[in-house]
C-alpha cells in the first residue's frame, strides 16, 4: 500500500532521467533543424529565387495606389464575363475567417471598398460567407454560392491551400468568374489569383535585415506561430536558407500560437540561458510581449524583425529599437473587389496579380506612424484605405 507513490515517483523519475540522458541528441537536432536545411516539403528553390527577384522589379501602375499595381502582369481577357448592368451584379465572397487582427483589418478595408464601388454603380449586392477557419465549412459555403446560381463573380480567400482546391475547381466549372486571393490553391482555373509577392520574400526581408545588422556570431531566436500553414512555412524556409549562408547562430525556433504570454515566457527562458541578440518572427503578433521580456530581464533590446502591426511599430519608435517591419501587404484586401468590378466591366486583369510587398524600414517609420496616428494598436500600417470614404472612422471605431 505504500508502494504506489514510490513506484510512480520512481517511474516518473526514470522517465525524466531517461529523457534527460537523451538531451544531447535533441540538442544537436534542434541546432541543426533550426539553422541549416529548410524542410524540403516547404522549400521550392525556383519560387524562392522568383520571389526574391520580384522584390527589385518596379511594378506596373500608379505607386500611389499599390493595390492596383502588378508585378510583371500577364493580362487576360475577361470579355466573356462582362455584365450588362454591373450595378445590379451580385458579388459573392467566401472568407476563410476574420479570426486574427490582420484579417479583421483587411476585411474592414474590403467592406469600405465595396461601399465605394456600390456607390459608383460598379458592383451590386455583396454577399459574404465566413467559414470561421473550417475548411469543410468553406467548401459548403462555396458550393452554396454555386448552387444559388445568382453570383456573377465569386471571390475566395481559401483557408487552406490544398484542401480548397476541389471546391475552387467546382466554382470555376460553374462558369462564374472566380477570384482567389491571399493563400492560393493548386489549380489555375480562376480568372485571377491575387497575392503579394509571398512568404519567401517576407521571410527573406526579415532574415537579411538581421544578417546585415548583427555582428557575425550573434545569436538569433526564431518565433513562429504554428506549423503546417504554407504562407508561414515559406517565411521560415526562406529565413533558414539565408541564416544558413550567414555567420549568425540560430538558437532554435519556438511555436507560440501568437499568444503574448507564451512568447514572453519563451523569450524569458532563452534569456535565462544566455544572450539573445536578434529575434526573427514569422508574424508580428505579440512582438511587443517579446520585447518586454528583454525589459523585464534587464537586458538590451535585440535587433528584431516584427511586422507592420502598430503596437510593434509604436514600441519600435518609443524605445528606438533596431528593427524592420516586414509587410504582408494588407491592402491586398481591396484588390479582389476591384478585380471583380473590372471583370464585370469586361476589362483585362492580370491572370496572376502579384502585388508589391515592401517592408517598412527605419526611415519610413515616422511617416507610417503619423498616417496611422488614430488607429488602434492591432491595426496594420499598410492597410491602404486612406482614400476610401469611410476613412478613418471605419477602422478606428471597430
Amino acid at each position, binding site marked *: 500500500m505504500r508502494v504506489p507513490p514510490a513506484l510512480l515517483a520512481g517511474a516518473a523519475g526514470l522517465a525524466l532521467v531517461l529523457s534527460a540522458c537523451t538531451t544531447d541528441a535533441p540538442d544537436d537536432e534542434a541546432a541543426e533543424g533550426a539553422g541549416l536545411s529548410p524542410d524540403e516539403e516547404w522549400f521550392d528553390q525556383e519560387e524562392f529565387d522568383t520571389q526574391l527577384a520580384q522584390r527589385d522589379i518596379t511594378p506596373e501602375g500608379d505607386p500611389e495606389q499599390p493595390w492596383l499595381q502588378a508585378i510583371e502582369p500577364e493580362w487576360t481577357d475577361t470579355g466573356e464575363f462582362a455584365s450588362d448592368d454591373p450595378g445590379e451584379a451580385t458579388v459573392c465572397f467566401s472568407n476563410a475567417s476574420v479570426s486574427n487582427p490582420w484579417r479583421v483589418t483587411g476585411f474592414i478595408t474590403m467592406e469600405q471598398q465595396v461601399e465605394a464601388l456600390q456607390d459608383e454603380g460598379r458592383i451590386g449586392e455583396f454577399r459574404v460567407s465566413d467559414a470561421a477557419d473550417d475548411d*469543410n465549412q468553406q467548401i459548403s459555403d462555396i458550393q452554396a454560392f454555386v448552387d444559388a446560381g445568382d453570383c456573377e463573380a465569386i471571390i475566395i480567400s481559401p483557408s487552406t491551400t*490544398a484542401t480548397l482546391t*476541389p471546391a475552387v475547381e467546382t466554382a470555376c466549372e460553374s462558369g462564374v468568374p472566380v477570384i482567389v486571393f491571399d493563400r492560393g490553391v493548386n489549380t489555375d482555373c480562376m480568372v485571377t489569383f491575387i497575392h503579394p509577392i509571398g512568404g519567401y520574400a517576407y521571410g527573406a526581408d526579415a532574415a537579411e535585415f538581421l544578417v546585415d545588422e548583427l555582428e557575425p556570431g550573434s545569436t538569433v531566436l526564431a518565433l513562429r506561430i504554428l506549423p503546417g500553414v504554407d504562407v508561414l512555412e515559406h517565411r521560415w524556409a526562406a529565413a533558414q536558407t539565408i541564416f544558413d549562408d550567414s555567420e549568425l547562430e540560430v538558437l532554435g525556433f519556438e511555436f507560440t500560437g501568437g499568444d503574448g504570454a507564451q512568447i514572453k515566457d519563451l523569450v524569458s527562458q532563452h534569456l535565462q540561458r544566455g544572450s539573445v541578440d536578434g529575434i526573427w518572427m514569422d508574424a508580428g503578433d505579440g512582438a511587443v510581449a517579446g520585447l518586454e521580456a528583454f525589459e523585464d530581464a534587464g537586458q538590451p533590446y535585440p535587433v528584431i524583425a516584427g511586422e507592420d502591426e502598430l503596437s510593434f511599430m509604436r514600441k519600435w519608435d518609443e524605445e528606438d529599437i533596431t528593427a524592420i517591419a516586414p509587410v504582408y501587404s494588407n491592402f491586398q484586401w481591396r484588390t479582389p473587389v476591384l478585380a471583380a468590378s473590372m471583370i464585370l466591366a469586361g476589362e483585362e486583369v492580370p491572370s496572376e496579380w502579384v502585388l508589391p510587398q515592401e517592408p517598412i524600414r527605419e526611415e519610413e517609420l515616422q511617416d507610417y506612424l503619423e498616417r496611422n496616428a488614430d488607429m488602434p494598436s492591432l491595426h496594420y500600417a499598410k492597410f491602404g484605405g486612406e482614400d476610401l470614404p469611410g476613412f478613418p472612422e471605419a477602422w478606428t471605431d471597430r
Partner: protein
Amino acid sequence: MTPLRTTAASLGSRLGTTGLVYAALVVLLAVSAAFLAARGATLFTTANTVDLFTRSSLLGFLAIGQTLVILCRSLDLSVGHVAALSALVAATTMDGDPSRIVLGATAALVVAGLIGLANGLIVTGLRVNPFIATLGTALIVQGYLDTTFQGPAGSVPEAFQAFGYTRIGPLPVSTLVMLGLAVAAVVFLHRTRMGYHMYAVGGDADVARLSGVRAGVPVVTAHVLCSITAGVAGLLLAARFGTGNPQVYANGYELEAIAAVVLGGTYLLGGRGGVAGTIAGVFVLATLDTVFNVLAVDPFVKDVLRGAVLVAAVAVYARGQQSRAATRVRFPSTGPPAPPPSQPPSPKTAPLGGRR
C-alpha cells in the same frame, strides 16, 4: 429480466423526447422559412437544401457514434482528432491511386477503431473518467499529427472524391450514407443484445452488472463504434478536401457533436435517448447554420446564438424530465425530503432498477 424492463421503460421515455425533438425541428424549419420569407429570401431553394444536407452529414457521422458512447454514460472528446487522423491515413495510403481506395478506407477505419479500443479500455480497465481519458487520447493524437505532418498530406483519387461531392437530386450521397448508418445504429440499439446492454449500462452500471451484463463490454464496444464513425467522418473530409489536413482537429467538431446529441434529447448521464433524436439534433444545428448563412450573420454572433440555443434546449429537456421528478430535493429547507422517486442524480444512491 431487469435490463429488459429497464430498457423497455427508457424506450418509452425516449420516444417521448424524440417526438419532442422532431416537433422542435419542424417548428424551427417553419419559423426559419417564414422569417426568411419576410426578409425576401427563401429557405427551401435547391442551394439551401443541398447546403443543409451537406452540413448535416459530417456532423451526423460524428454524432451517431457519440450517441452510443453517451448512452453508455461515457463521453468522447477525441472524435475531431480521430477524424483528422483517419483522413490523413486514408489520403496518404491512397496517395492518388484508385486501386488503393479500399485499402486506404480500411486502414483509416482500423486505425480509428484502435483508438476507440484504447479509449474504451482506458475508461473501463484503468477506470479513468471518460472526459479525461478521451481528452488525453485527443491530445496524444494531436501531438502525433503536429509532429509528423507539416500541413496537408496525401491525395485522394477522383473516384473517392465522389463520396464528398456526388448527389442524387438535392440529396448528397454522404447524407444518404449517414442516414443509412443512423438506421443501422437504431436497429443495433433496439434489436441486438449489445444494444440493450448499452442502455442497461448507461441506465445503471451496477444493476446491469447484477443482471449479468459485463459492464465493460458495451462501453468498449460503444467507444470502438464511435471512433469508427468518426473515422467515416474523416473519410468524408478526405473526400471533400482531396487530401488530408491535420489542422481540422482545431474545428471543435467534438463539442458540436456532443451538442447535437444532447439537443437530440439523449441524457448526458446515459441510459436515455437514441440515435433518432440525435439525427433531429443534427438537422436542428444544420438548419440554424444554413439560416445564419443565408442571413449572412456575423460569425461571432453565430457562436453566441449557438451557445444560447444549446443551453436553452437542454434546459427545456431538463424541465420536461424534472416535472416527472421531485423538485423538492433542491430546496430541502424543511427537513429531509422524501427520496426522489426517479432520476437519481447520483448513481451511488440509485435504488435497484431506479432509472425509469
